[in-house]
């Protein structure tokens, strides 16, 4: 039941610098924890986050175990045309989730 929360303004003016906020549900298991019997709990994290606008990459992040559970990432971008943001999270154990948000730019 992975879910993502995205905050992108619905509208902006050409040339505006907008902030995009993303929150993805994920345990981000560090790989450094142990069970009561002493076994290591294997690493299970999101390793990469990418944002594309109308197909072109505008932001990318490499994530390590030091990023908290339910990764929250915010960044800025200049908008010059209307279009669609596409977000992608990739991680261990074949984790792959996407989300999208549209913006109207006047």
């Amino acid at each position, binding site marked *: *039941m992975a879910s993502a*929360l995205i905050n992108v303004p619905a509208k902006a003016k050409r040339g505006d610098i907008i902030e995009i906020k993303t*929150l993805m*549900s994920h345990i981000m298991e560090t790989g450094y924890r142990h069970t009561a019997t002493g076994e290591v709990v294997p690493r299970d994290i999101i390793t990469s986050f990418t944002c594309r606008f109308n197909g072109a990459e505008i932001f990318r992040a490499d994530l390590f175990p030091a990023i908290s*559970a*339910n990764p929250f990432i915010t960044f800025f971008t200049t908008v010059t045309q209307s279009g669609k943001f596409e977000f992608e999270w990739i991680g261990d154990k074949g984790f792959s989730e996407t989300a999208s948000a549209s913006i109207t730019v006047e």
Partner: protein
Amino acid sequence: MRSFSAITAALLVAGAVGATEIPQAERRSGYSFMKPDTRAMQDEDTANPGMLWVLDGEALWKRKSGAAEKACADCHGDISTSMKGIAARYPAFDNATGRPIDLEQRINSCRANHQQATPLPFESRELLALAAFVARQSQGVPIETGADPQLAPFIAKGRELYMQRQGQLNLGCTNCHDDNWDKRLAGSAITQGHPTGYPLYRLEWQSLGSLQRRLRACITGIRAQAYDYGAPELVELELYLMSRAREMPMETPAVRP
């Protein structure tokens, strides 16, 4: 026992303030004890990790479940009307058992009685998500738990549990949360212990969790034996704490350290 409880109940209803109880005007939510960065996490829906569970709850609300193949939505319709204010008066009196019942237990009894579905395990993601989604509908609503006179003996019991010293550290909840709030324990602020935002996202858990989970962790922390999930003592404590927080606004899902 009954007459003793009736007297205690009368005192509570009359609003008498015990020697150590926090005066109404001084009551503060745990929110106010947090640093600005943590408060900012709660303030915005897209920054609040607890909202991920609310989103899950929204999906579960519509999902058909059990032998009856019914979804919560089939009986309760639009949650923003049917569940508005509900969490603000829980734990509530359950006629079937003659005891108080908390929100998670109510969800499970509904599943059993109306959906013919198996109960969701305590602290499971599904149960927390549904509880969070329901409680979210009471956001800003002043707590009114305990108004029902049938709850009086159970509130009194909950108060007893709250006041009693226990465990290796021989502490009662009241020793910290009534007598020493706003002082610090190992770098963390001691709050007044009002459950205004449950289920909540606790940074220590990196997950959403219930009030029962928090109470169990606290009781373990004072080196006492924690009650099992669903134990009557935990529901009585929840009931007392919510009635002690009467009139404070609900803020589910809160974020706390």
